[in-house]
């Protein structure tokens, strides 16, 4: 059984869609032959890229003029649905604007949300979404009850993106109704924190540091090792909260989900919050002083030792190889 109509909350810029959007479109294609992308922004510029991943149609609000994406997207979706264009299911990315949009829309439609999912399926007429709980040790599947549109959000990298080879999506211009007081917030400036090297959630190798590094200046070892391996540096929530590194470095439940070929955890004990973001890595190397640290339960190679001794030697050895 498939669904008649599925929407994906889609994002991108400069004609390129986000990898997250490509993942969700790929999944949506397996649920319905009628997949549309909904862009709170210039959807026309993304029509080619969205079509490549199977979107037949792209709803486009056009430039938002500094309004926040979440509330504008929810208003535009609600207006489209009220007009009779009603999807069975809308897939959202579990990220900043995706979360805002799904939350606002849920109140407008009076329907529940299922968030943090890693899978979704149609089983005997029910739409069932699966979320990992207790650090991913248990899979919790919930079915929507009542009528749609059903609203579900997903963690990044839940699905492997595959092109469908489709033609450019047909652009449908939609207006954003006046949100009144709810839409009063405005973006006045945008800041991009430049990082050199590969992006954290796309890197083939990730080297992350945690509290075990002792003090913020020691994060330099993590950055150096990441650079030597042509990878990206990451961090546990503990040292992000402590202000050692920006939030954009954070790996975990409230940060980025990474699935690199190699993940090196240096001085990270392996709190549930962190494990959720990295245990899908193909190979995990952990260095920690405490041999009881939970991180060793998921590590392919665990070194019980002092990061201040192991990391400098490792860096020297890699440098010596040239």
């Amino acid at each position, binding site marked *: 059984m498939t669904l008649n109509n599925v929407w994906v909350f889609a994002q991108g810029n400069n004609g390129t869609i986000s990898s997250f959007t490509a993942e969700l479109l790929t999944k949506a294609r397996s649920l319905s032959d009628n997949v549309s992308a909904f862009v709170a922004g210039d959807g026309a510029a993304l029509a080619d890229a969205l079509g490549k991943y199977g979107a037949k149609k792209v709803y486009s609000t056009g430039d938002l003029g500094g309004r926040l994406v*979440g*509330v504008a997207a929810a208003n535009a979706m609600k207006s489209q649905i009220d007009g009779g264009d009603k999807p069975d299911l809308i897939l959202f990315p*579990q990220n*900043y604007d995706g*979360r805002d949009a*799904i*939350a*606002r829309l*849920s*109140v407008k439609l009076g*329907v*529940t*949300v*299922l968030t*943090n999912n890693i899978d979704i399926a149609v089983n005997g007429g*029910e739409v069932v979404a699966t979320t990992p709980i*207790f650090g991913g*040790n*248990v*899979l919790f599947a*919930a*079915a*929507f*009850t009542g009528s749609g549109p059903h609203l579900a959000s997903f963690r990044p990298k839940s699905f492997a993106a595959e092109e469908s080879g489709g033609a450019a999506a047909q652009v449908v211009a939609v207006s954003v109704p006046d949100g009144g*007081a*709810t839409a*009063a*917030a*405005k*973006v*006045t*400036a*945008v800041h*991009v924190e430049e990082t050199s090297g590969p992006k954290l959630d796309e890197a*083939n190798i990730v080297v992350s540091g945690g509290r075990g590094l002792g003090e913020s200046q020691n994060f330099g070892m993590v950055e150096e090792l990441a650079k030597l*391996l042509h990878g990206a540096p990451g961090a546990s929530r503990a040292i*992000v*909260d402590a202000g050692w590194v920006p*939030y*954009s470095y954070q790996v975990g439940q*409230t940060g980025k989900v990474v699935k690199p*070929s190699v993940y*090196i955890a240096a001085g990270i004990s392996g709190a549930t919050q962190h494990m959720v973001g990295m245990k899908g890595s193909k*190979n995990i*190397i952990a260095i920690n002083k405490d041999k009881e640290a939970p991180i*060793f*339960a*998921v*590590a*392919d*190679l*665990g*070194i*019980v*030792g002092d990061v201040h*001794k*192991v990391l400098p030697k*490792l860096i020297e*050895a*890699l440098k010596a190889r040239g």
Partner: protein
Amino acid sequence: MKVMKIVVCVKQIPDPATPGSLDSATNALKRDGKLILDDSDAYGVEMALQLATAAGGGEVNIVSMAPNNETSGMRTALAMGAVRGVLVSDPALAGSDALTTAKVLAAAIQKVGMPDLVIAATESTDGYTGTVPEQIAEVLGLPSVTFAKKVKVEGGTLKIDRQTESGYDEVECPLPALVSVTAGVVEPRYPSFKGIMDAKKKEIVTVTAADLGVSPVGWSGAGQKVASVTQAEARKAGQVIEDDGEAFNKIVAFLETLKVI
């Protein structure tokens, strides 16, 4: 000068240091033991206290929803300096979804009296649905700025640095509004001894969903049901060795076998 009125939504959760479990009958998250203030909410309470001080005077109220008239986490917030709290505790609320939770908390906020500012964490540590703050804003008809990592109020306008995928946005928003704050936005104070003693005397009003006029709630109000609960495939632990000063060679060798160096 007008006193700034702030309401902070807080969650009282099982100690995250103890492993979580599901109720065998309902598959709901077990929350029947002693509950503590969610760490993530300490940042919101601190932010509220600092904004009230910066405004030259203010009043910080706490709202929470918890089973069994649990108030120990709220007392922590009161000990930090909040003036009073409203607790919604009602067996009928068991099994409520995020939308119902938001409606209940929104009604509790209205019971306190519409504030200038509502503050929440971005998500709870135990359930982490992550939509409740924005849902509360929608129910109350408020603008919202989520994932705030810096918050100040200037001339009745919020000025916020909001986290984004690539950095942050500067956002301006008129009051009244809702803000969800990230961990680390401020350094939460430790309650003083005097604060702890004073908190015992502060008022916590306990109400039910019916008192607030919110229905349906609980399992019957939730637009979802449990389909299945299964054990995930466990990742197997590999080799663990003690560093003898040469363990770095093991890492080099492992990276070689993976052909990444």
